[in-house]
């Protein structure tokens, strides 16, 4: 069940939450809507579910225009950030709720609920109340509840946002595995780019109600459409009009025509990775990412002068990357404006 959104617009008072948004989500894919707060990603997700109405635009599920359909009829599974558990019902009653509404027989409900609790690894907790579960367990219950009615589409709104870092990482992997098993078209919203890149096959980056770029994690990282995308999905140094990734900054000991002079301000060891903070002649602050091996080879010390060279610099203002200190391979799209949809097969 592929999903399409065409020309979506939504205002809340003075605030434009969605600004002419169009996306394509292929059948069976796992897509992430990624962006900072206020970017419109949750609004878009909820519009697909029918929990928000669009001012203009259409939502199509499997080719059918569902814009006029109420939430109840869209057959979308929805998982909320704060679980939205039915506090006065047991886990069993929560998971079986959708089936009860559809008037399934008791035996059939029992079988299906047991199956799902196995799937989400919560067997034996059927008679507990949500308040007796941990956050991670509650979220898995919410997922089981959404999956019980065999939805065409699964939508998750910052599903791991309320959980601890460790639980988040575990559930991420678990979600990916679940998706591989079930193959339901899934869209999830997150502001954590690492999470999006780890879990999703396709990412849609949003900002201020617009889609900035859509593609695989590699596409977005290596070929960002504009400054926003580049700095959102990874670390970035700004050198004049150009943008360079820290691991693309090469530090050498000898100067030549392609290098720029810099003062080593600080060297920080962050586990395997070393972060070197430098200052250029004109005061621009830059940081480079080295491995321990590289640092040892260079024998770099704080307070010393070193020379920089950069690779894969990107420029987004229409002209090719200028001869900024160290620029070697001019590259990158020239225009950073509203990127249109790119279909990821």
């Amino acid at each position, binding site marked *: 069940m592929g999903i399409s959104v065409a020309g979506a617009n939504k205002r809340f008072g003075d605030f434009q939450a969605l600004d002419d948004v169009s996306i394509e989500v292929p059948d069976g894919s796992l897509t992430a809507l990624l962006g900072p707060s206020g970017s419109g990603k949750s609004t878009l997700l909820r519009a697909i*579910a*029918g*929990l928000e109405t669009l001012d203009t635009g259409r939502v199509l599920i499997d080719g059918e225009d569902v814009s006029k359909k*109420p*939430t*109840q*009829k869209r*057959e*979308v*599974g*929805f998982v*909320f950030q*704060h679980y*939205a*558990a*039915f*506090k*006065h*019902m047991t886990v069993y009653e929560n998971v079986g*709720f*959708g089936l009860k*509404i*559809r008037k399934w027989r008791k035996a059939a409900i029992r079988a299906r609920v047991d199956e799902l609790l196995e799937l989400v690894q919560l067997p034996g907790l059927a008679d507990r109340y949500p308040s007796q579960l941990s956050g991670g367990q509650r979220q898995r219950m*919410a997922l089981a*509840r*959404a999956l019980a*009615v065999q939805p065409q589409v699964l939508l998750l709104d910052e599903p791991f946002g309320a959980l601890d870092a460790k639980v988040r990482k575990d559930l991420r992997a678990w979600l990916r595995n679940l998706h591989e098993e079930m193959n339901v078209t899934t869209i999830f919203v997150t502001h954590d780019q690492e999470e999006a890149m780890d879990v999703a096959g396709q990412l849609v980056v949003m900002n201020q109600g617009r889609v900035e770029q859509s593609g695989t994690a590699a596409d977005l990282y290596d070929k960002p459409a504009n400054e926003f995308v580049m700095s959102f999905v990874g670390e970035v140094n700004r050198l004049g009009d150009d943008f360079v990734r820290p691991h693309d900054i090469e530090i050498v000991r000898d100067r030549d025509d392609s290098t720029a002079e810099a003062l080593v301000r600080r060297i920080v060891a962050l586990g395997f990775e070393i972060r070197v903070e430098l200052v250029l002649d004109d005061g621009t602050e830059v940081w480079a990412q080295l491995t321990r091996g590289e640092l040892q080879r260079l024998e770099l010390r704080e307070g010393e002068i070193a020379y920089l060279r950069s690779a894969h610099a990107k420029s987004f203002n229409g002209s090719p990357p200028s001869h900024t200190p160290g620029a070697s391979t001019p590259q990158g799209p020239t225009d950073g404006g509203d990127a249109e949809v790119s279909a990821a097969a």
Partner: protein
Amino acid sequence: MTGSTSGRWGLRVLGLGYIALLLVAPLVLLFYKTFEEGLAPPFEAITSADGLHALKLTLLTVAIAVPLNTVFGVLCSLLLVRHKWRGNWLVDAALNLPFAISPVVIGLSLFLLYGKQGWFEPGLAEAGIKVLFSTPGIVLACIFVSVPFVVRETVPVLQEIGTEQEQAAETLGAGPWQTFWRVTLPAIRWGVAYGVVLCTARVLGEFGAVSVVSGNISGETQTLPLFVEKNYENFNLPGAFGAAVLLALLALAVLMAMNLLKRKEAA
């Protein structure tokens, strides 16, 4: 207060002494005085024709006024909390009025509205409906004074549970009525119950307004509180005390219910 023991005891004497003197002592004295001569006199007074009638009328009023205000209360809370409207502040203000108005004034306003020169008079007379000096008037007065309770107790609970559970129910296929019945109502039930208890207590005990609209006719339009007053003024102390004790017992039952519900809500 990180207090000295004498400070602490000082406060205790003041506070608890105040409560004992103001609230508890009179109540205890009531029970004592009522049963001074034994159980028989108050019991007989209560089970007299007038007494039984007063009891029945009071209970009937509760049975009509409370359910009506409960349905209204839940409906009104839903509208106030879930659906923004320009007129909401007006509804809010109207709901606060019963707290600001003296019961006598409430009685008077009903008296004027439904009385001989009242706005509804010709129509009601034709339909043969008697509002004043009759049960409908009493019920209307009791509804007036107790209208806000269910709403006030339900609104905060509704606000607290938020809309997410209801949205979840929608995504699972539940229609509006199903969502209300299976998800919303169970979630707010203790708030509603507490409001119902407060509403009941208010209706049971209403005196001033009922006194004005009913004419206080013994055996006909006399509720239990009015029975207490009339008997006291006629120096029929067993009657007055008997009814008072009955009402006090009901009040204590209400207190227990309130206490129980407060704990359930907190859980």
